């Protein structure tokens, strides 16, 4: 009995000492490190082709360990906490999504400035990945916007189901959100299914097309939502459509999303290039999903990510080398073939492996070529608008408003009013 108690006491002391010690250590790592390390760690939520990592090991002798996350949000949380604790728990190299790029760059010194690589990326991708003149991230993929649709449901509703016919149906080359939603109203009359999975996703895409949605690019201050006519116009347009029932009210990531695909509850989904793989996974086993060749209001970009090197890492030089390697055009091509992420590298976009590979899930369509065309026609809009520190928060308020309309708790006018009231209560514009 006594020895047992002693053992317990000893364990308790040992445990608490360990806790104290581990609390003090960590985060002591200073930047720099020209030596060649044995291993490098990469934090990512997308799959990296193993042969790519093997090739890097062959060339440099450095092993690469992948810290893989289930989704971008988990990777974001880990990165956020790591930066806030001076680099503790961070990997040598991190994949950063455009949607939370601004947040991670709050303190540019947290990140190693990367050497310029001439003519590798589309210009705006380099601009997005820079803070001032300093390049902080090497672009991996971009997210040209497209619309995926279920040709089976279209056919059942007696509407055009082939990609050309569908593209014409939503407005053709000059499609607007208005014409897209009108097509939805027409579809809703002929079908029991909803036109789109969620109008809150659609408004997010439309917000991505605005040059400065919520904040003043010069000062970074939030614009009063009540006077934000551009956003209100979008809100009313999507809100009215939601009220008329064109939306199933189940957006990407919602608990019901996968089941909704399997039950064929909606005909269209806003699909940035990186979402093609996610849709193929959730709609696994279903025939008939296709991608349309036009996008409302001339297209745009949603998301896309960067490889960036935390300055707190011990082997920053080697990590920069790995970032360079993983964002080479060749690497981008093999990423596209594995996950469907559309490359931001000019040479990779031209590569026949990207433009001419038939996508099995989307009925053999050459999705690479379609996204290349959409990225080109998006033009300046592809670069996306200004995002300040409050962008994500305000966007959530607006999207929640649309969700309230979708679920039937408020009509469009009331939902806008309550989103504005919530915004005002935050006191951002006082």
């Amino acid at each position, binding site marked *: 009995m006594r020895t047992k108690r002693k053992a317990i006491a000893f364990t308790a002391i040992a445990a608490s000492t360990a806790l104290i010690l581990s609390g003090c250590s960590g985060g002591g790592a200073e930047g720099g490190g020209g030596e060649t390390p044995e291993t490098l760690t990469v934090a990512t939520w997308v799959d990296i082709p193993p042969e790519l990592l093997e090739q890097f090991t062959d060339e440099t002798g450095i092993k690469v360990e992948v810290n893989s996350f289930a989704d971008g949000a988990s990777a974001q949380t880990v990165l956020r906490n790591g930066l806030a604790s001076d680099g503790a728990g961070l990997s040598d190299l991190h994949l950063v999504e455009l949607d939370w790029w601004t947040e991670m760059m709050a303190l540019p010194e947290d990140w190693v400035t990367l050497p310029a690589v001439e003519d590798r990326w589309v210009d705006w991708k380099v601009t997005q990945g820079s803070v001032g003149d300093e390049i902080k991230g090497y672009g991996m993929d971009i997210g040209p916007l497209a619309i995926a649709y279920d040709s089976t449901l279209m056919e059942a509703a007696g509407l055009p189901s082939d990609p050309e016919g569908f593209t014409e149906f939503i407005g053709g080359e000059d499609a607007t959100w208005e014409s897209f939603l009108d097509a939805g109203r027409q579809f809703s009359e002929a079908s029991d299914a909803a036109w789109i999975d969620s109008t809150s996703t659609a408004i997010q895409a439309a917000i991505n097309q605005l040059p400065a949605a919520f904040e003043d690019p010069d000062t970074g201050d939030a614009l009063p939502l009540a006077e934000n006519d551009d956003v209100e116009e979008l809100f009313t347009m999507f809100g009215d459509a939601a009220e008329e029932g064109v939306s199933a009210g189940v957006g990407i990531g919602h*608990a019901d999303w996968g*089941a909704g695909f399997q*039950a064929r509850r909606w005909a269209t989904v806003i699909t940035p290039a990186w979402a093609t793989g996610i849709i193929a996974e959730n709609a696994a086993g279903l025939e008939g999903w296709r991608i349309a060749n036009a996008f409302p209001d001339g297209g745009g970009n949603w998301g896309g990510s960067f490889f960036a090197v935390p300055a707190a890492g011990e082997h920053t030089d080697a990590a920069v080398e790995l970032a360079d390697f993983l964002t080479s055009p060749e690497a981008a091509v093999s990423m596209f073939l594995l996950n469907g992420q559309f490359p931001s590298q000019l040479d990779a976009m031209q590569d026949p492996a990207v433009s001419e590979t038939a996508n099995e899930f989307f009925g053999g369509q050459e999705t690479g070529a379609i996204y290349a065309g959409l990225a080109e026609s998006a033009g300046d809009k592809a670069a996306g608008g200004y995002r300040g520190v409050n962008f994500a928060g305000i966007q959530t308020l607006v999207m929640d408003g649309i969700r309230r309309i979708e679920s*039937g708790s408020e009509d469009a006018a009331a939902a806008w009013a309550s989103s504005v009231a919530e915004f005002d209560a935050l006191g951002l514009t006082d």
Partner: protein
Amino acid sequence: MTSQTAATRRIGFSRNLSRWDIKVSPYLYISPFFLSFAIFGLFPIVFNIWVALHDWDRRLGQGDFVGLDNFTWVLNQPAFWTALQNTFSIFVLSLVPQLILALIIAAILDQNLRTKTFWRMGVLVPFVVMPVASAMIFSQVFGQFGLVTPLMHELGWFSDVDSPFFHNRFLSHVAIATMIIFRWTGYNALIFLAAMQTVPRDMYEAATIDGAGRARQFFSITIPSIRPTMIFVVLTMTIGGLQVFDEARVFDGAGTGGTGQGGADNQWLTTVLYLFNLGFGDWQDRMGQAAAVAWLFAAVIIFFTLLNFFVTRAISTSTSKPTRASRLAAKRLSEKGRTR
């Protein structure tokens, strides 16, 4: 002369040493707990006051001193009050059925069952499942295409909404309360079981001889005997139940990329989830406000825990007046003792 003083000094030293041993050692023995508590418990609590009084950015850290501004800001947020209401609604919805179920399960386990240990371990299985894992499974059950919703629609309930559990405020509370009940009932049942086993068997025997049925025995002997344990369970449930977070966050599929922010209309936004959204969510610079929520909520919890404590204590002391059955049982007992 000198050697003599050295000897006395040595005696003095060893005496001092043993005196210190008696006085200081106990504190050393218990110090690991207090040290780790000071670092991981007390320091964050005190530091939190500091954070609550400042503008605080997640990455850039401390900003200007703002006094009580963060507190007034929080009190002016409609979402804060909604979150408080939701928290209490979920708490009440989970507490009451949980208590009743746990008591019934414990009473059954207290009987002479075959393979006792198997059943006892069995009720603990839901507790072993990670809260997030069970929440994700339940969110599928309550989803639009899950187990419950199509059935409800068939019966004509809430058929005007696609996904009533993600829409209706009360139903979302019921769903989240179900997850909590699923997880905690077995745990509480075991605590009740431990208490029930300390009740003298003689009382049951006596009651059986007097002709009291199982139900009567349960209400007149078991329940009054385990009252102190019930107070303990209710208190811990109050503290734990008010802090509900995991279930609410994962309910609509966060973790797989969903928003996890408590619903578009804040239907299932709980106070701790609100705190989390402020401090670690979309906003970069609301750590101070989040700290203020923590303090306001701590005050609320302390208030209700005290209230609960006094109410349950009042109940447990006021019923010292014996019921007829227990009086009879006691009489039997004493007679039994006398005949021996």
